[in-house]
């Protein structure tokens, strides 16, 4: 039964979702199943990671159809790492949802849909088939549509419409790209494509397919000219939903970009240049956008965009050092962004507003909590030895080595912008004397909660802050993982051999 270890995290999420559907109306049972299931999912993903780490890339040919005809599931180190991070963030958000999402929302199947979302994410990381990747993306966006509209407030619906429209557009473009590629190469298996595509005669059409992929995934991962849906929608759903969206949904787009451009469309100077320009503009516009926002969640939304730029920048340079930076940043960013949105939810619960202008003296009231929140903030800025610092070293080294001085400058500028944004946030929300707010009726304030509920609120934040600290102080381990992933990405032959052993 160990041969199919790589499917267990995937199947387990499906099992959880089905199990949760049986308890549709019993919210308290759902909470328990979701949290306990989260622990098991972390354990299974950990096992998978250990297996991949010790004995190399794992593959399963679903339904025993041999690649390139069937659908292959592949767990290389990158996929296994991301599955593990999904499980960790998923567990934290399960915890946080059980305390922070109001029962009126939970009653309409919040938890089952949430686990379908995690299923989609896990599947997208593990699949080795490009059409299957599309299917997982569909599962992700359909579940995210439900999660973002659940509750049906006016602002929420408005955000959801924008989110819908652009994500469906992205899916259509992605599907078109697959169709073009399939028409050209006659295969959908990514390993097979990576052998076939470089041999194709019609380079112009290959380029077109590549650009279509870039646009499709670009919308999903919110890069420069395509990001407008993100700040317009991410602040509207409950914080728990924003947390999983902010932590993982854009990152799955980045993952797809990394996969496609390291495996299928490699050594393409034109694409590299485009990615470089996109990265530079994303870094700049995200950072500047964050400066002028007044809503905490909107600030964090713009910071997501800004920091996507780091990862795209590393991918654009496509040297080993640059990829190490990209992967390290990806690992650090998933945990951090999930945590940031949970923090924004906690602040909202304490004060009853997310408006920076109205918030204040949080440090005075909750000094210990404020210090806890300080850890992710420091990591976000990248003060050594916190986690944001280490990937930036790799990225800066790579930019110097490849003479990309504009990107080098923008990485520094974006870091500075992040610093300014967070410094402003800290002084406004934590130090400033806040406005006196009218207590809202029918609003459960944090101080009035029971002790158990308070723990449920704070524990996931502590947990992810702990993971962030580990990424920062145990950077050596994460660096090793990133280096191994980067060398696997640079040497695509090992991926091909793992999927199709008979090609030698």
């Amino acid at each position: 039964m160990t041969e199919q270890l790589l499917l267990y995290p995937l199947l387990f999420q499906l099992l959880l979702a089905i199990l949760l559907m049986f308890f549709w109306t019993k919210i308290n049972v759902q909470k328990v199943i979701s949290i306990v299931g989260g622990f098991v999912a972390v354990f299974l993903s950990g096992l998978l990671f250990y297996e991949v780490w010790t004995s190399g890339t794992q593959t399963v040919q679903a339904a025993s159809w041999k690649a390139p005809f069937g659908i292959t599931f592949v767990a290389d180190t990158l996929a296994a790492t991301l599955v593990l991070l999904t499980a960790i963030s998923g567990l934290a958000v399960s915890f946080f949802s059980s305390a922070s999402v109001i029962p009126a929302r939970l009653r309409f199947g919040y938890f089952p849909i949430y686990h379908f979302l995690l299923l989609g994410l896990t599947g997208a990381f593990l699949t080795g088939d490009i059409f299957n990747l599309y299917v997982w993306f569909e599962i992700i966006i359909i579940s995210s549509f439900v999660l973002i509209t659940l509750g049906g407030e006016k602002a929420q619906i408005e955000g959801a419409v924008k989110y819908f429209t652009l994500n469906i557009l992205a899916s259509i473009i992605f599907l078109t790209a697959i169709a073009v590629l399939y028409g050209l190469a006659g295969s959908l298996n990514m390993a097979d494509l990576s052998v076939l595509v470089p041999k194709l005669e019609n380079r112009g059409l290959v380029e077109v397919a590549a650009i279509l992929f870039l646009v499709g995934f670009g919308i999903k991962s919110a890069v420069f000219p395509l990001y407008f849906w993100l700040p317009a929608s991410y602040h509207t759903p409950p914080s728990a939903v924003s947390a999983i969206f902010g932590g993982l949904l854009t990152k799955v787009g980045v993952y797809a970009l990394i996969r496609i451009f390291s495996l299928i469309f490699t050594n393409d100077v034109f694409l590299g240049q485009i990615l470089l320009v996109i990265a530079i503009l994303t870094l700049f516009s995200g950072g500047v956008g964050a400066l002028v926002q007044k809503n905490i969640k909107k600030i964090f939304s713009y910071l997501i965009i800004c920091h996507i730029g780091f990862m795209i920048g590393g991918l654009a340079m496509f040297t080993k050092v640059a990829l190490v930076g990209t992967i390290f940043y990806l690992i650090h960013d998933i945990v951090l962004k999930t945590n940031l949105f949970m923090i924004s939810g906690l602040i909202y619960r304490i004060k009853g507003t997310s408006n920076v202008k109205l918030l204040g003296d949080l440090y005075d009231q909750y000094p210990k909590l404020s210090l806890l929140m300080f850890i992710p903030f420091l990591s976000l800025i990248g003060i050594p030895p916190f986690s944001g610092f280490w990937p930036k070293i790799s990225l800066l080294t790579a930019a110097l080595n490849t003479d990309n001085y504009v990107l080098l400058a923008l990485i520094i500028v974006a870091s500075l912008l992040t610093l300014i944004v967070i410094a402003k946030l800290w002084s406004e929300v934590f130090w400033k004397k806040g406005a006196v707010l009218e207590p809202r009726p029918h609003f459960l304030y944090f101080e009035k909660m029971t002790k158990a509920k308070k723990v449920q609120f704070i524990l996931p934040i502590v947990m992810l802050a702990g993971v962030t600290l580990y990424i920062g102080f145990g950077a050596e381990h994460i660096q090793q993982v990133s280096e191994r992933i980067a060398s696997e990405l640079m040497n695509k032959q090992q991926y091909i051999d793992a999927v199709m052993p008979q090609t030698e």
Partner: protein
Amino acid sequence: MKTLILRTASNYLLPILLLFSIFILLRGHYLPGGGFVGGLIASIAFVLHAFANGLKNTKRLLKFHPGFLMPVGLSVAFLSGILPVLALDEPFMTSLWMHHAIPVIGKLNTALFFDIGVYIVVQGVTLTIIFTISESA
């Protein structure tokens, strides 16, 4: 829409359509058809019944909320997929055939149960959607 003709006809059409949906479901293994279409036809049978006799009567006929069919169908499909993993350590969704044919029915395989799962899920989803819409209308 309480016309006598429709009401009388729908009482006969319900079992016929249900049988037809099962025929389509089983036919789908090699020929056009399958769980999805079969499920749609089965739900059409109930929708027609609801048109003729009113939603309340159809609900009484069904005895449980159609939403319940969704997790049931999903579990059937899930079990058919996981069976080869648990029993023989074959990859997920590998189709297993029975060694000996059952009289009249013939050889069964796990793909059939996957299709039955789809059949149930489609019914659950369609009926939930239609019932919800006609309740709120």
